[in-house]
Each structure stands twice: as structure tokens, then as C-alpha cells.
């Protein structure tokens, strides 16, 4: 029937930014349920292989916003 969803109405999922507690490598992945900023997670660092990472940010990147506008 009636649809209200336009391009600008689409929801963008933010990315979770993680920093390795061992080598400080920064990494990002799609947001997962239960994530919050400053949470320590048992995830493998893609560079050094350490399994302790800290969530340092959860936000929508500028490129994601641009992609929505295009």
C-alpha cells in the first residue's frame, strides 16, 4: 500500500572501531549486538593475532553517508 521509505530514510548501520590492546592496530567491522564503546572484546587482531581488543568508537563513517546520498 502506502510506502514512506525514500533514499534518505534508509537506516545506515554504524561500524564498530577496535584497537588491539597489544599492538594498537586499528580495525573496523559492522556493529554487533552488545557492542559499546570501551568494551574489551575477545577478538583476534588481524596484525599480531592477539585476542584482546578494545572498542574505541561506534559511528557512521563519512563514506557510508556519501554512499547513501548517491
Amino acid at each position, binding site marked *: 500500500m*502506502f510506502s*514512506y521509505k525514500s533514499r534518505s*530514510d534508509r537506516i545506515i548501520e*554504524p561500524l564498530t572501531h577496535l584497537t588491539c590492546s597489544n599492538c594498537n592496530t586499528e580495525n573496523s567491522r559492522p556493529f554487533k549486538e552488545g*557492542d*559499546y564503546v*570501551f568494551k574489551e572484546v575477545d577478538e583476534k587482531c588481524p596484525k599480531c593475532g592477539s585476542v584482546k581488543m578494545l572498542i574505541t568508537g561506534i*559511528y557512521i563513517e*563519512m563514506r557510508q553517508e556519501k554512499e547513501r546520498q548517491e
Partner: protein
Amino acid sequence: MKDILDLLQIGGQQDILSSLISLIWLMLLMSFFLYPGLSQKIQLSYMLRDLERKLNRLKAIDDDVKDRTIKTLQTYAPPEIDVKNELEKLLDSFIISPESMDPYGIVYKLEHIVNTWEDRFEEDVVKICKKADNIRVKTLTNLVEVARGVHFIYRFVRHYYLLGKRTSNIYLILQIQMLMPQIMEIANAYRQASYAFIHGQPIGDGIGVLSVARLAYGREKKTYEIAKDTIAHELDFEGRRLILVRASGPGGTVGRPGEGVQKIVEAEGDKVKLIITIDAGLKLEGEESGKVVEGVGVAIGGTGVDKYRIEEIAKAKGTPLYAIVIYESITEAITPMREAIAKAADKVIEKVKQTITEKVESGSTVIVAGIGNSVGIGIT
């Protein structure tokens, strides 16, 4: 009849069809002259159609947010609870502002009413979502508040639409029609905010809390609860005693920073030499999101109670009030945080550090309050 048709002819002989069209045109023209309200009625019907279209869209947003809220609450509710019915009760609940004929003491009366409202709202959410933990309850309470906000917008627009239609009041319809672009923008922002609260994602309004959390991260400190849903970190910064105040996270709450700051100043006495508040501020159109600006005063929105408390105690003790504001739009404030806003936290920290070292002598105490919603921001 033929004489009239002959008279209507311009530039020579015409067939019967052209004469008929000319006659219709003439009658239309005459109706506008003889019945001046006709043009207004046509305009009103056009405006009502436009408003009806937007009202349908608002209804769709309201239903969408409500459905999503019910589904989320159901995951934490025992099966015997009728979530839909309980939510309807919360959506229709209201708050009555205190009487202002005698304004003496009105701020504390307002605070009492708002605190009662917040506590009751949270208790009702706990009654529905018995399986949710404390952190989740805070975020679910925010989600219900968002659903209530959207529902109120829909009811408000529907009221003016129906009233204007029933009374054929073009001026009433005109006013609501002029406000519709902003109203639709806010309703859409609420819809996106519901997603953020369902998943516990940080929102733009949380930048004050995020800045303070970053400032405290990795430093040796003492942490304790100073007021309901409000924590304080005590730490040392270049010989100064720094007391950071923020809403406790990662659940969605704004805490009671006014009460927190007041308690600290009362306990510390004259040792507090500066109070800095950090909050998100509404930008003007054309301004850059995430821009960090400094000023004087208390940067806190909401009912004004927290602002009043800090101003009162600061005036009594003669403590200077500094404010740092991060610009963002109303949509950005209640939807998942944008990169430009998140990155502003580092600039805020630099400004706070610079202000403290420049304005406060070693051995003194400084209070830094990060204002905003703590959803998705943990305690460091």
C-alpha cells in the same frame, strides 16, 4: 441564445463547440467574481490533500516505531504480559507542568515532577521487561520515550488536520502546513533514533559523555556514583584535582549532572576553581557538524533544572563557568553518531586540557561535566 453566442465570438464566426467552451470560461470567470470564497475553498482543499498525504506518512512512521518497540519489549517480557496493551498505556501517559502563577521555587517543583515521571516510566518498563538487566532497562526506557515522542507528533498533526478540515479554517491549516517540513524531519529522526536505542548504539547527543570517558580512559582514578545514574571520576591532572561527572553507561540515560556537580562543589568548598560543561549544541543551517566551540555559561539542555542547579552553586561560590559545545543538527543528535562528531572528542579533550592548564593553578580542583545520553558508551 444565439445572440449571446454571437456576442461571445471574437474575431469572426465560430463553431458551436468553441462557443460552448467560451461560455464555460465566462461562467467560471463570473463565479470567481460573484463568489469570492471559491478560490479560498479550492486552495484549502489542495492544502488539506497535501496535509493528508503527510499525515499518512506520519502514521506509517508511528506504526513502524510502535511495531519495532513492541517486538523489542516482547523479547524481554514474560509471555503472560500483554506488551501491546502496556505500551499503549505508556504512549498515552502525560506530565503536567507545575503552576507558574507564583514562580517562587518552581524549578524544584519541576524537578520533583520530572524525577517522579522518569522513575515511574522506568518502573513501568521494568514491570513489562522482567528479563532485562539494569543497563538494558535504561535503553528500553529511552526506546519507549522515542515511541511516545513519535506518537505525540502524529496525534498533534492529526488534531490540527481534523480541526482545520471540520471548521474549514484555512489559517489553521496554513500554519500546520508551513511547519510540516520540520515536523517530518523530526519524525524521521525519531524513527532512526528507535533503531539506535534498540541496538544500544551511541547517538550524537552522547558526545559530551564520550569526551569525558576518553579523558578518563587509561588514567588512575577513583570512581563512584554521585547522583542517580550519574558517576564521578576523581583523578590527578598536572597537579590539579580533576573531577569528571557523566551519566553512567552503557545504558541510555542522561543522569542528573546538576545534582552531581552541586554535591561535589558543596563537598569541596572553595577548592573548586572552574566548572566546565561539555555538550552537543544545535548548529545553524550551513554550519559544519562536529565543530567545537567555546563559550561561557552552562552547556545543558533539557528542562533547565540541571542548568539552574549548577548556576546557583557557581554563583554562590563565585566559580567561573566555561562551556564547550559540539555543533550538530537535531537529526544528528538523536541518531547513531556520525564520524565528524565522534572525532570531535579529541579536539574537546585538547581544549579542556588547555583551559585547565591556562586558567587553574596547581593544587586546585576543576569539575568537568560531560552532558548527554550515555547509550552505547561504557564506563572507563
